[in-house]
């Protein structure tokens, strides 16, 4: 938090002017409110001084009440109070508008980035970081907008007040000129000193809640290991350090708060002393002294707001710089050149000399060649980490090969319109992602689809029975706010989603792993008989492998053997070992 940002004011001015230019009217209204408020506040003191001189002192000296004067004094005080009140409304409402609009704008840009960057970006950046950008970074980047209008108002206020004091008497102005820099310095010192402990407090609050979260999440393990006391000790350490940082902050507050309150008071005492001498020599009258005292009181607090502004500025600069980096992330390359249209029949797929890697790691796929003839089913078999998923992701162009070419119906994927590719290829993942919506919405993904097609897809995917059994059938809400589906049901729903699009190439990346083996086999049989599509299926179960036209054995980033299941069993000892391991696993899954 304690950021010393080089060129802070230049960079701060740049970011602020960006914000202001996006919302010029709201910002101007808010500053106008702040400025009128400042004038009205000074006006109040002027009126009080006037009233003292022209109403209060004469009335009490003469004992005669000037009714007209008294009433107009009352009206003036009331009016100026109401002006102050309404200008506060103006300032606060429009300052909030600028801040919230700025936040919405940031958020729009961020989510556009999140949606348009290549998948690789998401793989490399933790979800938490991306959400933090959309949450705390955006708040930090725009927080400076809250004290900004009032800070501008404060500058106006100080200028008005100094002019006003100078009009009363230059000697009183001198006291003010001595006092205000002192206040500014103390405020700066205060915010600077409090900055670190304030950050500590926040971090340690976070630490306490992390310990508590973790500890209660693992309560069962804590119990079974008999570690309750160790956990209490761990929390006590976190709680102690939180207490310490709060006490440190308390000491700083305890030092500065009374000081900041006392300084203007001492100023007023000095002013009264000098003021009353000036009255006695006839240079001033009593009302002017009262007015000056009120002015002093007026100025103490706004100085603090200015302090918060100065404190927020670096945070905003740093956070907005961070957001700018995110927003500048490279977007996915879009359509290139000719955009040939694919025929409406099952498409042959070819991987030619494909090499693929994630970041700086050694290649996941290396010089890989594979062909899926049109309308055929190829089973992809390989150990964990062999590169099966990467191979699958090449097809809908979630990743592009570093070297080599993937062709669809004989055309290089990169020469096709991405929309055309996604229309032709459907990839079903092992991890099913469901949207927080109805079963229907999850399958149709917002596109108008006839009930017949829905039924057809759901029948092949064997999802129709359980969907019908849901409380509201197709309209049952699913996910966080709705019904929880089992792993197998989720996978079948995802398969329905893919089949509904009548893909010309279907890629199943271990997409039925959680489905009951009997149902899985039935799904694959139905797929073969009722769907004209080329299929690549990542398989673990023998029953699945046996259904394929051909098996491709992936090992060490390349296809090491191809043929029917029986052929591979006789030719590849590694294949035999792997299949044996799968076989042991699938024996006996119940409950």
């Amino acid at each position, binding site marked *: 938090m304690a950021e010393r940002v080089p060129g802070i004011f230049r960079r701060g001015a740049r970011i602020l002017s960006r914000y202001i230019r996006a919302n010029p009217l709201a910002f101007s209204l808010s500053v106008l409110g702040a400025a009128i*408020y400042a004038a009205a506040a000074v006006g109040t003191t002027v009126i*009080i001084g006037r009233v003292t001189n022209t109403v*209060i002192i004469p009335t*009490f*000296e003469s004992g005669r*009440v000037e009714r007209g004067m*008294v009433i107009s*004094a*009352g009206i003036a*005080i009331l009016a*100026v*109070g*109401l002006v*102050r*009140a309404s200008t506060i*409304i103006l300032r*606060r*409402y429009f300052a909030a*508008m600028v801040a919230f609009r700025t936040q*919405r704008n940031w958020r*729009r840009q961020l989510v556009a980035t999140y949606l348009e960057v290549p998948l690789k970006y998401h793989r490399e950046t933790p979800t938490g970081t*991306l959400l933090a950008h*959309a949450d*705390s970074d955006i*708040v930090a980047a725009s927080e400076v907008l809250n004290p900004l209008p009032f800070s501008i108002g404060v500058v106006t206020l100080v200028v008005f007040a100094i002019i006003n004091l100078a009009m009363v008497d230059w000697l009183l102005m001198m006291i003010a000129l001595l006092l205000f820099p002192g206040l500014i310095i103390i405020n700066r010192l205060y915010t600077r000193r409090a900055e670190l402990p304030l950050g500590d407090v*926040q971090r340690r*609050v976070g630490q306490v809640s992390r310990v508590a979260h*973790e500890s209660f999440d*693992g*309560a069962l393990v804590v*119990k*079974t290991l*008999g570690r*309750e006391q160790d956990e*209490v000790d761990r929390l006590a350490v976190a709680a102690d350090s939180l*207490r310490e940082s*709060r006490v440190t902050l*308390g*000491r700083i*507050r*305890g030092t500065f708060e009374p000081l*900041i309150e006392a300084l*203007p008071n001492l100023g007023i*005492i000095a002013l009264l002393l000098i003021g009353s001498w000036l009255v006695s020599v006839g240079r001033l009258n*009593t009302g002017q002294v009262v007015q000056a*005292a009120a002015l002093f*009181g007026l100025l*103490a*607090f*706004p100085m603090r707001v200015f302090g918060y502004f100065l404190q927020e500025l670096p945070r905003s600069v740093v956070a907005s710089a961070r957001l700018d980096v995110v927003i500048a992330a490279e977007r996915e390359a879009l359509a290139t050149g000719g955009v040939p249209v694919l025929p409406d029949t099952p498409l042959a797929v070819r991987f030619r000399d494909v090499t693929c890697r994630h970041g700086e790691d050694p290649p996941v796929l290396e010089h890989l060649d594979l062909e899926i003839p049109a309308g055929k089913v190829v089973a992809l078999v390989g*150990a964990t980490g062999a590169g099966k998923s990467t191979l699958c992701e090449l097809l809908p162009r979630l990743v592009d090969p570093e070297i080599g070419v993937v062709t669809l119906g004989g055309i290089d994927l990169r020469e096709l319109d*991405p929309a055309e590719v*996604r229309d032709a290829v459907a990839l079903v*993942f092992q991890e099913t*992602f469901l*949207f927080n919506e109805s079963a229907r919405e999850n399958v149709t*993904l917002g596109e108008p689809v006839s009930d017949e097609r829905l039924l057809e897809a759901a029948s092949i995917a064997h999802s129709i029975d359980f969907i019908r059994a849901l409380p509201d059938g197709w309209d049952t809400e699913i996910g966080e706010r709705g019904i929880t589906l089992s792993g197998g049901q989720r996978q079948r729903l995802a398969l329905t989603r893919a089949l509904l699009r009548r893909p010309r190439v279907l890629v199943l990346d271990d997409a039925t*792993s959680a489905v009951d083996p009997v149902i899985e086999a039935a799904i694959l049989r139905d797929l073969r008989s009722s769907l004209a599509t080329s299929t690549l299926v990542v398989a673990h179960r023998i029953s699945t492998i046996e259904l394929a036209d051909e098996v491709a054995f992936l090992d060490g980033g390349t296809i090491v053997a191809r043929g029917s299941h029986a052929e591979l069993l006789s030719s590849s000892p590694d294949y035999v070992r792997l299949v044996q391991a799968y076989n*042991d696993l699938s024996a006996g899954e*119940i409950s």
Partner: protein
Amino acid sequence: MSADVTPGSDLAEHDDLARLEHAAAFDDPTALDHERAEAAAAADASEKRGRALTVLRRGLAESPELGRGFKITVLFAIISAIGRLTIPILVQQIIQNGLLADEGFRVGFTLTACGLAAAIVVSVSILSRITYVRLVLTSESMLRNLRVRAFGHAHALSVADHNETRRGDLTARVTSDIETIARFAQYGAVAWIVDTVVVAGTLIVMSFYSWQLALVTMLVATPILPLFRFMQRRQLKGYSIVRTRVGQTFSEISESVQGAAPIRAYGLQRRSRKRLDVAMDQQYKAEMSAARWFAFMFPLGDAFGGIALASVVMIGAWWGPGWGLDAGGLIACLFLVQLILGPIAEIGEILDQTQTAIAGWAKVLNLLDQPIDVVEPQNGTELPAGALALDIEHVGFTYRTGGPVLTDVSIAIPAGTAVAIVGETGSGKTTFAKLLTRLADPTTGVISVGGISLRDIPAASRAEHIRMVPQDGFMFDATLRENIAMGRRGATDADVEAAINELGLDDWVAGLPHGLDTEVGERGEGMSVGERQLVALARAQLADPGLLVLDEATSAVDPRTERTLTNALHRLSEGRTTVSIAHRLSTAEQADLILVFDKGVLVERGSHDELVAEGGRYAELYRSWLGNTGQS
């Protein structure tokens, strides 16, 4: 008189300040829960208004430090009040006795008065600091103790009925609830006392000049309180809508992040974009409608300041001379009027904070009042080493909320037996396992382990000799080594390595990026489910228990880890009594004894062959399994 001329602005910016702190609190992942908890607490609070005193009394009994803290706070309040009242009195004195005195300007008096006032201002500053720091020390140590006590108590409670909600609640008790009390202790509580003393002091001083003007001020200022509360209620409601909307926006954003792959695979960017835009616009609308109250609430002080000031000037000038008021007195009253408005508005502002804090406090105290249902014995009997026999006599269990889960279960299991428990979800098999490890006590009947009633075995001995290996091997955010070492108190690195070796896990550990020093991540998420189970097994091996209760994993594990796991489990089980909650029939097949549970009743017992021959529920399960995988 800090900002006495503009009491409204003082408050207004106070609020900006609160927002700043609030914004920073967003870094805290629990901030959102926190907000939700707060809103809920505010709702609760209104129902339980009358109970505030009860909570206060119980809270005082729980934290006797508070009594001392209260005295310091009162002292602090009086000192602050004196500080704030000094200047208006000085202004009046100087005008009355220094400037407008009959004999003209009195230098001596003015000097003395100013000197005295300066001395008071300085000493108030110093005393404020001393008392404030004492106050912080007291309240912070009280909060720290309350937090640690509540946390300890939460862990002492039975975990038998733990679920997601319950865990969230417990976390809220020791985090957000305590934080609401902390915030109240830092601002609200002090503000209450200081404001009350300042208001009372100001009215007293004012009535020295003119009791009539004091009365007028009071009458004018009173409506601030209900008005403030009214607006604050609206504002809170507005903010609670904002929170809901923010939650919706974030669930949309996280959907677009977590669903990055399917969104790209199916070209759903435009659809997501549209939904996000709707969510963000709704959030903005909610924010602006809450901002309306936020904008309208704070100028109240200025508006009322104007009314009060105008009334005092007019009434004071009109009738003042008749009441024996003088010019200095009236001017002092002008300053005093403004001293009173700030505190009154502030009280209005903290009313809801107070209720939230009291509700939070009540929740923490309620937690502390929850009886510990699993009471540890005073002088227990230690368990012997080696495999342990189990004796279960007429055991039944009923959750505090809900019907019976287990009914009259009796079975004797000789030491060294491998037992498999089979049954559908909700059959009571998991509860049965929990009772064996004393995660809860049976409602009826007795469980004896190694001939000793579970209730007579001290916690330490139980932790060592009876070990449960849960389905999901939860890990702490530390290294693998540290996580395994938790298996037994005082385990050395050599012990950890030995346990790994005994279970045949050396190859697995060697394959990890940093071996035993690999960081496992939050909740062990850096490791696969299978690997987490390996850790759970290694922990158990370290403890060398005589009774092992295993909750078999249901989720799929990759073949290599699965082999390692099976092997390790086999080695771990050797020479111990094991009770496994079986999800695979192969586990049951290999067991010495199978217990079949149905709706809380132990319906069948026997070996695999016996039960298959019997033709009951187990046989039925077995047949359906054969049907499923007939070909392999």
